[in-house]
């Protein structure tokens, strides 16, 4: 069963090589790879829900000397989300790129990005995590620059430099850990780290590097241009998955590995940055002219919510209340992943059909592209956090936790953020449903529109109505 851990990164990597060597069949090969990898992820989800955490020692060397892969509830859920989002975006991308040369460039990098995501989520070794971070960063940058226009190249270059700086800081922390503890294995470290300058500095450096990569305010400056100028399927994956991979690592380090040396003050700092991200990101999303930039700023804001959980989780004693809050965090992250990916795909359709993504000129989109507009509306429901979306459950836990730990100030931020989100979503929908008659008739392009609908639908209905298994899965191996 634990072989699934290997196939999860080996399949996309094999696919990357195959699409590189057989460019004519690249699209077909990539889609086959996507379906197969998703099937493996589903198998893993099933296995982890029954047997708990799975691990694999690569090369048969015990963890420490060798590298161990691990899949617990948290990483399995994120792996599953990754698979579904990439699968849907792959279907969309098959129609998005019209020229053969474009497709030949896109697929190998796309599958390398997936390899990096899966490898990162599975890795149980600090230095290996550094390598996966670099693979993720480089493939993301290469994909983001595929637009080839000045803005895209400029944004990609900045993205690369920021990412490199982040990984160097992470690596500095990793080096300190090895110097002091003589191991890189996460689960061994969880038992050996002790409070002191060594662990503090290492954790601070790694966290700073990761915050840069996950674009937490005020380190978010690179994200909007990069996400807004990339090709639509790439933007979807960048916003939904890539920034979240860095967030996952922060969560892993803070809650699992270095849990013993955290102070409320540090968690509060993350909370404050998260709150600022919510307010600033939402405000910028409300003010922006372009739909893609709106979605990108909304990502900045949504990441803020995830960091609001830190001061709350840390103020809670271990127990069912804390597990419930952690489940809320995960479901919020999953909902945002599905919703934002779907939103970017929908925006891509609008951009291709209308030739622009200027919000104030969207009048009549609802008549022309009803399914796409519906997808945007569904995604909006999830971003605002209305019931029945998964985000509603997540925010519910967040607010409950804030009251339970006496940190009611965060509640005001959440409410303000949700109101701002409602404002920017309704601003878009208001234009899209504008009743100026449009000469063109309704367009439906099933292959392009389905992925966006399915993704946003999952965020609103799937996670909202069937969210309970998330808590079970997280609890089964706590």
């Amino acid at each position, binding site marked *: 069963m634990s072989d699934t851990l290997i196939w999860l990164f080996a399949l996309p990597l094999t696919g990357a090589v195959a699409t590189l060597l057989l460019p004519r069949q690249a699209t077909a090969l990539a889609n086959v790879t996507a379906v197969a990898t998703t099937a493996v992820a589903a198998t893993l989800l099933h296995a982890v829900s029954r047997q708990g955490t799975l691990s694999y020692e690569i090369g048969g060397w015990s963890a420490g000397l060798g590298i161990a892969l691990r899949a617990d509830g948290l990483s399995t859920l994120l792996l599953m989300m990754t698979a579904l989002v990439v699968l849907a975006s792959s279907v969309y991308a098959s129609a998005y790129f019209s020229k053969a040369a474009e497709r030949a460039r896109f697929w190998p990098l796309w599958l390398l990005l997936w390899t990096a995501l899966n490898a990162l989520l599975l890795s149980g070794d600090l230095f290996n995590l550094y390598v996966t971070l*670099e693979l993720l960063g480089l493939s993301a940058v290469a994909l983001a620059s595929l637009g080839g226009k000045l803005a895209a*190249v400029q944004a990609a270059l900045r993205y*690369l430099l920021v990412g490199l700086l982040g990984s160097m800081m992470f690596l*500095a922390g990793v080096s300190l850990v090895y110097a002091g503890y003589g191991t890189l294995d996460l689960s061994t470290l969880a038992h050996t780290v002790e409070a002191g300058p060594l662990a503090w500095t290492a954790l601070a450096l790694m966290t700073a590097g990761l915050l840069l990569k996950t674009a937490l305010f005020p380190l978010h400056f690179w994200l909007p241009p990069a996400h807004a100028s990339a090709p639509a399927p790439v933007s979807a994956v960048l916003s939904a998955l890539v920034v979240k991979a860095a967030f996952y690592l922060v969560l892993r380090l803070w809650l699992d590995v270095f849990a013993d040396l955290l102070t409320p003050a540090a968690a509060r700092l993350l909370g404050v940055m998260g709150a600022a991200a919510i307010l600033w990101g939402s405000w910028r999303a409300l003010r922006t002219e372009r739909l893609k930039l709106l979605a990108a700023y909304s990502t900045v804001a949504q990441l803020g919510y995830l960091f609001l959980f830190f001061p709350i989780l840390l103020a809670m004693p271990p127990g069912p209340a804390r597990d419930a809050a952690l489940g809320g965090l995960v479901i919020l992250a999953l909902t945002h992943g599905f919703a934002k990916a779907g939103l970017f795909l929908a925006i891509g359709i609008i951009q291709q059909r209308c030739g622009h993504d200027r919000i104030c000129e969207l009048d009549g989109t609802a008549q022309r592209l009803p399914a796409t507009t519906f997808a945007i509306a569904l995604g909006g429901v999830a971003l605002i956090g209305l019931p029945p979306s998964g985000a509603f459950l997540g925010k519910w836990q967040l607010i409950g936790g804030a009251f339970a730990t006496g940190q009611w100030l965060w509640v005001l931020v959440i409410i303000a953020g949700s109101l701002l989100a409602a404002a920017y979503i309704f601003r878009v929908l208001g234009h899209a449903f504008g009743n100026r008659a449009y000469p063109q008739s309704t367009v439906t392009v099933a292959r392009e529109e389905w992925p966006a609908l399915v993704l946003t639908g999952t965020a609103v209905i799937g996670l909202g109505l069937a969210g309970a298994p998330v808590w079970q899965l997280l609890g089964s191996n706590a």
Partner: protein
Amino acid sequence: MLTAHWLYGITGCLVVALGLRTALLHALLLHRLIGINVMGAGVFLMLIAVAYRGPGVAPDPVPHALVLTGIVVAVSATALALALARRLTAEQDDE
């Protein structure tokens, strides 16, 4: 007490700080890139200093392997950054 260990380890820390400062402050792309590379070199120096066990004792090979990997990763990233910069110039010339 090993002096070499300390001497090179602390130098590594200083080199990291030097590189970090340039990477954060400098306006020119090439300098920032060199800054990041210098920062990486400082981290590698720290690792190699940690691996050193004094004359006559075999050093720890694991940091050596990590640094080798790190060097190759750093040069890949540098290469991609320079290619992006070249494309950027071309696009700017087109404007």
